[in-house]
């Protein structure tokens, strides 16, 4: 499993690996919002939590179709399926690799962009915390979606349609935690629910993903 994780990370930083694409997309979307809304600091700081969370959802979505499609095309997915590494482990390694190359950089860059959207100062730590808790779920749910569409030509659009509705709970509780933090309220409830979504998806989805892959590989 660690071998697969390291290989995927290495592939991501090599030429054409797409590392940083999600991060760059996130930066651009968030920078575009103040330009579109105009210099209304009060409005911006009100919508900042939602914008930051929606942007990270879209950025995570961007690289999902690569998770299994490349391995499927060059045949390594079939070889992995017959290897001693269980497909459940492979799914987990793939999701972790996706999170490290997409979710983690997003989380670390988000506070700087919160400044751009004049996010309330009290909300920064909750922004960081909610993204840290929530983005792993985005990667795991996305890995499941990628397994569903593996082998389909141009499956990327279908993947977005399948995965985005599944992202809704993460978005609601993530943005809610930041908003409550900004308003000086207690965001603990939203953070706990966010953590539950992540824990739940990591507990269940590797098995579902592996079963889906087995069917798609037939």
């Amino acid at each position, binding site marked *: 499993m660690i071998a697969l994780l390291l*290989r995927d990370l290495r*592939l991501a930083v090599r030429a054409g690996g797409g590392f940083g694409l999600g991060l760059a997309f996130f930066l651009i979307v968030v920078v575009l919002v103040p330009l579109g809304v105009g210099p209304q600091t009060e409005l911006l700081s009100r919508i900042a939590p939602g914008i930051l969370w929606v942007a990270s959802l879209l950025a995570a979505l961007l690289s999902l179709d690569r998770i299994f499609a490349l391995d499927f095309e060059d*045949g*390594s997915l*079939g070889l992995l399926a*017959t290897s001693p*590494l269980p497909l459940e482990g492979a799914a987990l390694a793939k999701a972790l690799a996706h999170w490290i190359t997409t979710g983690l950089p997003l989380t670390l860059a988000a506070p700087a962009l919160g400044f751009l959207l004049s996010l309330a100062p009290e909300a920064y730590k909750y922004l960081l915390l909610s993204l840290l808790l929530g983005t792993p779920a985005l990667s795991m749910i996305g890995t499941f979606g990628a397994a569903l569409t593996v082998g389909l030509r141009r499956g990327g659009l279908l993947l977005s349609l399948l995965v985005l509705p599944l992202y809704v709970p993460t978005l609601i509780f993530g943005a809610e935690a930041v908003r409550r933090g900004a308003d000086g309220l207690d965001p603990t409830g939203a953070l706990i629910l966010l953590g539950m979504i992540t824990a739940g998806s990591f507990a269940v989805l590797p098995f579902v993903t592996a079963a889906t892959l087995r069917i798609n590989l*037939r």
Partner: protein
Amino acid sequence: MLRVSNVTCARGGIPVLSDISFDVHAGQALILRGPNGIGKTTLLRTLAGLQPALAGEVDHPADEVAYASHADGIKTALSVTENLSFWADVYGQPVPDDIWDTFDLADLRERIAGTLSAGQKRRLGLARLGVIGRKVLFLDEPTVSLDGFSVRLFADWLQDKHLASGGVAVIATHIDLGITAPELDLTPFKSAPEAGGATDEAFL
């Protein structure tokens, strides 16, 4: 070591080969013959466990099976060494030192796999079989795009290393590998066209 009894395998829900039975003993290879589309790949995928058999049983020692498809599973952004050591890690094996000479890869070790020729990639894909240390190999046209010299290299490895150490191989190929092995022509096992198999496509 490998026992296949009355296996029927299907592609896309339609049975292609029925009632195949054979035994392969340790140190033996079996060569599958048959025209294009007869179901050699389907049979090999079924034997390797990538798809379920419609009927029949496949017996082989657990955790000893490896499959090599048409595609080599090579990552073009990684070097030759990185590609091989990845598979060695997945199977928990060390990379043997003589593998580079066995498959004539010694000069290519640091090359990025994307810059290799088709035949060189194929040699790298076959070298994977040498590092994973599995006893039961299912090989789907292993010699595609190899030149005569490389085919010899591969046949020598198969004969002297793999089979000599008690391994087993089932190989689908159209050419003469130059190894002594019984052949199985799949044409007589072709499923009758009207034989309807269990299919779940009706609900789609």
